[in-house]
C-alpha cells in the first residue's frame, strides 16, 4: 500500500538569537546578519512524520519547502533523518508573498503530488509567528486540519488519532484522511542525523547548487538519481500569476518601527533600609498598593 506524507518546512532567520547588527539603521531587518536555520517547529513535525513512516508499512515522506536556493539545506538535513525526497519551490516571482500567496503556491505544489494521505508541518515559523499558512493551505486543498498537534497516537488506512495541546488542556481527536496537521513545539524533539543516511545523501544537491560546483557530478547522479533535489519554479506549478508574490498578497506593510526603548525618568534606589522604607511609604500613600 502506498501512503504519502507531505512535510512542509521552512528555512528561517534565527530571530531568537538576534545580535546587535540584526537591525539596520532604517529599522528594517538585516537578514544577512542572521543565521538561517531549520524552523524549530518544522523539526518537531519532521519527527512526527518519521514516526508515522516507521509505523505505517510502505509510507514515504516528501518534503516541500519554499525559499531561496540555500533553503536546500533543510531538505538535506531532512534526508539525513529519514525523509525520502524533497522539492525546493524557488523563484523570484514568489518574492514578497504573504501567507495567502504562500499558501496558494504551496497548495498547487501539493496538488502535483496527489494522491497523499497526510500533510504535516510546524505550527508556525519564527520569522512571522502567524500560524496561518497551514490552515490556509488546508482550506485551499479542501481537507480537514488538526492544529496544535503534540503527538500522533495512531494511524491506519482509514483514520488518524492525534493528541492536541491547547492553552489550557488537551484534546484527542480522530480524522479521516487526507488531513493537514500542524505540530506544536511541545511535541518530541527531532532525532539527530543518522550517519548512514548522511553518507547516502551528503552529495544531494539542487541544479542551482551543482552549477557552482567545480567538479562534475554527472556520473554520480546517473548512477544515483535519488541524489538530485528537484527545484520547482512558477512554471512548474499551474499558477495564476496574479495570485503570486506581491500582487497576490493582500496585506501590505505600511510601517516598520524598530523597538526602541523610551527612556523614562527613573528614580534610582539602593538596597539600604531607608530607601526601601521610603519607597514602600510612597507606594502606600499614593494608593498604588495597600
Amino acid at each position, binding site marked *: 500500500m502506498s501512503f504519502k506524507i507531505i512535510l512542509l518546512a521552512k528555512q528561517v*532567520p534565527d*530571530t531568537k538569537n*538576534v545580535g546587535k547588527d540584526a537591525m539596520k539603521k532604517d*529599522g*528594517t*531587518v538585516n537578514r544577512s546578519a542572521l543565521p538561517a536555520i531549520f524552523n524549530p517547529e518544522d523539526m518537531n513535525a519532521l519527527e512526527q512524520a518519521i514516526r508515522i513512516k516507521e509505523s505505517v508499512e510502505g509510507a514515504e515522506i516528501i518534503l516541500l519547502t519554499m525559499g531561496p536556493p540555500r533553503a536546500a539545506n533543510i531538505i538535506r538535513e531532512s534526508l539525513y533523518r529519514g525523509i525520502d525526497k524533497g522539492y525546493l519551490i524557488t523563484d523570484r516571482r514568489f518574492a514578497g508573498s*504573504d*501567507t*495567502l500567496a504562500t*499558501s496558494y503556491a504551496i497548495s498547487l505544489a501539493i496538488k502535483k503530488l496527489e494522491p497523499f494521505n497526510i500533510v504535516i508541518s510546524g505550527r508556525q515559523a519564527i*520569522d*512571522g*509567528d502567524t500560524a*496561518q*499558512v497551514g*490552515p490556509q*493551505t488546508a*482550506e*485551499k486543498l479542501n481537507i*480537514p*486540519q488538526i*492544529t496544535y498537534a503534540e503527538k500522533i497516537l495512531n494511524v491506519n488506512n482509514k483514520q488518524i488519532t492525534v493528541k492536541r495541546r491547547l492553552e*489550557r*488542556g*488537551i*484534546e*484527542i*481527536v*480522530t*480524522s*479521516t484522511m487526507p*488531513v493537514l496537521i500542524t505540530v506544536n513545539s511541545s511535541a518530541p524533539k527531532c532525532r539527530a542525523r543518522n550517519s548512514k543516511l548522511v553518507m547516502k545523501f551528503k552529495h544531494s544537491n539542487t541544479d542551482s547548487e551543482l552549477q557552482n560546483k567545480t567538479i562534475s557530478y554527472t556520473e554520480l547522479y546517473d548512477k544515483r538519481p535519488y541524489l538530485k533535489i528537484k527545484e520547482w519554479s512558477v512554471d512548474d506549478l499551474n499558477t495564476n500569476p496574479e495570485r503570486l508574490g506581491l500582487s497576490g*498578497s*493582500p*496585506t*501590505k*506593510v505600511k*510601517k*516598520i*518601527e524598530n*523597538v526602541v*526603548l*523610551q*527612556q*523614562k525618568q*527613573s*528614580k*534610582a*534606589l*539602593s*538596597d539600604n*533600609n531607608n*530607601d*526601601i522604607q521610603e*519607597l*514602600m*511609604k510612597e507606594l*502606600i500613600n499614593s494608593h*498604588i*498598593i495597600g
Partner: protein
Amino acid sequence: MNNLFVYCEVAEDNSIADISIELLSKGRRLANELNCKLEALVIGNKLNKIEEQLFPYGVDILHIADDKRLFPYTTLPHASIVKEILKKEKPQIVLFGASPIGRDLAPRIASSLRCGLTADCTNLKIGDYIEDKTKKQYKNILYQIRPAFGGNIIATIVNPKTRPQMATVREGVMKKEIFLDNYKGIVKKIDVDKYLNDCDFVVKIIERHIEQQKINVKDAQIIVSGGYGVGSKENFSILFDLAKLIGAEVGASRAAVDAGFAEKERQVGQSGVTVHPKLYIACGISGAVQHRAGMEQSVKIISINIDKNAPINKIADYTITGNLSKIIPKMIKYYKENSK
C-alpha cells in the same frame, strides 16, 4: 453591510470568552469611528440569553448559531458558518481572538475569501493609506499593528484592497469596557442546517480535558514578576510572599519559565500574556524586548536587579540595585510597618 464583525468564542462555562469581550469593546470604538454598526457572531450550543452578556458592550446585531454539534469547537463546522455569513453580510472588518480557536479558524476563512489576515495584533487603529506606486489613497483603513520578527520590530499592516480586513488580536491587550448597561441590539438566528453538511464533521473529539484557568496574571492589578536572576524555583517563594501580602499575582519571564522556576501560565511577554497592571515589580528580569513588549504599558514599574544597567531599568519608574533576596524581605517588612 460594511459593518465591523467580531467572532465571539464560547468559553468552557458557556459564557463568552474574555478575549471576545475585549474585541467587542475595541470593536465598538472602531465602529463609532467608522460610523458603522458592530455585529457579533456566536457559534455554540445552548446559547439561551447569551445576548444579555453581549449587548452591554454595544453590539447592534447579534448572529447566533445554536446547535449541539457546535460545541466544543471544531474547525470545519464553524468555518462553514462563518464563511457563509461573511459572504452574505459583507463586513469591512472582522476580528478574531489570537487564541487557539481564532488562530485555527481565521486563516481558513481568509484563505476561502481570499482576503488579507494579520496575526496577533497588539493594537488596531483607523487611518488612511496611500499606495506607494500608484499614489492611490485609501480612506479609513484598519491599521493592524503587531510585533514581528521575534519582537524586534513593530509592524503596521494594512489590507487596502480586499474585504473584509481581517485580524486576530492578542488576548489581554484591549480593555473590556461596558458601552451602555441597557444597550439593546437585535438578534438574528442562523439556520444552521442550511450551512452544515456531513463532511464538516470528519474530525471528531474523542477525549477532552480543558482546565479553567486558575492563575490569572493578565487581570492582576499588581504583578510581582521574576526572571532568571531569581535563581531557582525555591527562591521564587519570596516573590509569592510579597505578592500575597500586597494582593498581587506572580508573573515570570520566559527565561524563568524555560528554566522551570515558574509555570508557563505565569509568563509575561510576547509568547506569554500582555499585562497592564498599576504596578509591575520586576525581580531579576533583565528585560529582553520580548518581555518588555508584554509589560511596558504597566502604570508603574519597579525593577530590582543586581545590574544597574539592565535594559529593563530604562523603562522602570524605580530601580533598586542590589540582591533581591535582601531587598524583597525589606519590602515585606516596611510594607507591614507602614500599611494601615
